[in-house]
């Protein structure tokens, strides 16, 4: 899906600081990247990914930015099994 309909829960992105605007003294690798902000909200109008979008956040603030994603799901998990952990605390290691 690349198009959001008014009222969809979406993620927008704002450019906060371009690389040349970043704070002095930060590491070189970080300095080469922009400071980005992402936030979720209900979109106030139809828009396609990459277009400007205005959202209302969960607390009711209106924020604008580039529509980044329509997929706002959290997908973090317990991760793949780490076999190295399994035998800790068992008879095998008593």
């Amino acid at each position, binding site marked *: 899906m690349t198009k959001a309909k008014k009222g969809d829960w979406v993620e927008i992105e704002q450019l906060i600081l371009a690389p040349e605007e970043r704070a002095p003294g930060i590491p070189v690798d970080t300095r080469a*990247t922009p400071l*980005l902000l992402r936030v979720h909200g209900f979109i106030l109008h139809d828009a396609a990914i990459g277009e400007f979008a205005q959202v209302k956040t969960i607390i009711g603030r209106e924020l604008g930015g580039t529509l980044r994603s329509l997929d706002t799901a959290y997908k*973090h998990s317990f991760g793949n099994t780490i076999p190295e952990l399994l035998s800790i605390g068992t008879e095998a*290691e008593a």
Partner: protein
Amino acid sequence: MNQKDMSYQALMARKNEIMKASMGMDYDDFVFSPIAFDYERMMAGTGYSHEDIKRIQAETKAGNTPLFELKNLTEAVRRISEPGKGARIFVKDEAANASGSFKARRASISAYEAKKKGYKGMIAATSGNYGAAVASHAAQRGLKCIIVQEVFDSRGIGQPEIVEKSRACEAYGAEVLRLSVGPELFYVLLRTLEETGYFNASLYTPFGIRGVESLGMELAEQTRALTGKAPDAVCITHAGGGNITGTARGLLAASCPDTRIVACSVDLGGLHMASDRDFNRKSFTTGHTGFGVPFATWPDRVDVPRNAARPLRYMDEYQLVSQGEVFYVTELLSKLEGLERGPAGNTSLTAAVTLARQMEQEQIVVVQETEYTGAGKHHNSQLAFARENGIEVRRGKPEDNVPGKAIVIPERLSQLAGKVQDMDKLRFSYIRNAAKAHPASEWTDRDFSFIADDIKKDTAWVKAALANITEDKNDK
């Protein structure tokens, strides 16, 4: 209306006025010099008694958490200790607070204060458990909440532990401003405070730290009730310093002046905290040396003019542990004690094991927190993520653990060692930082006595240390 200049420089220049407006408190009332201020007057100035704090916390489901004896772990430690050694290990199950960590104690007082002063909402800049705590306690007081978090690197990827923290904040109804890597998080915090007029629920206000005092007091009362005496040592996971400061102050208020205060952090030596590349190679998002050392050696580097968290004032010992050691103990806690808890909170449990081994069997060591666990906030999640990102994960000797390269999980309990830090080295470092903040040639008696109190020494010691440092400099 005049359009305000929102550039980084212009906004940072408005820092003091934004802070004042967002806290309803003027730090100038306590300040003597760029170094010295009246710490105790600032803490008392919150106006809350210990009873008030208890009552406020009980209203929003914080405090009164259980203290459990870890009998099976104690037995396991005794089996690898010399005869007669192996102190009793207890843990305060802080995961039982609303929002799942001791940070609820801080947030509950901040939320109460924000509400009392008439703010419509509160904001905190944090990538730790404090975000969920502020969100949960704001919700309970009917306040709006914004959490500013450093979440993802330039590839858009965040450690599972941090992603879970974002999720938790949203679960409690907060707006989460998720940022890429960099210290300019502070700029976003200031900007958002100015835009909204909300309360700055900084981790480092006197309200927050006073909130942790109840942890130390409860712990003392519960240990006495269960064992008939005060704890001999309390192990405290150390990052920003509020956990140690509040707990130690609570122990003092509960008449435990002889309890040894042992701080503990995960050693992340070699990784740069503000580096985009290192961001996802830490495998811990808090409780580590990237916060622990700088905040101990100079507390006044935070989002408020003077920090109420002053770890060296209270710390007797500082132990570093490896990532692998903490993950090992986290697994052991589940298997031996039936308590599945988050890894970051188990940092101090790791130190407790090595400490208990050196202590007599009738002595008591208390681990003063646990944190909740779940998808992302779990040692298996963090290890799986590390492995996917090219970090070696294996069993072996803890000394082979290299932060960002290899996580080495001990093969057996007897390998847990921790590394005791040289406290005087930390104190020297503090004095050097103080001299950077305000030239030592201009220090008054008040500065010397403040520094002495702040690092748990006397003024003669501070003067001798300063002379040594100056000599060293002249030699170079």
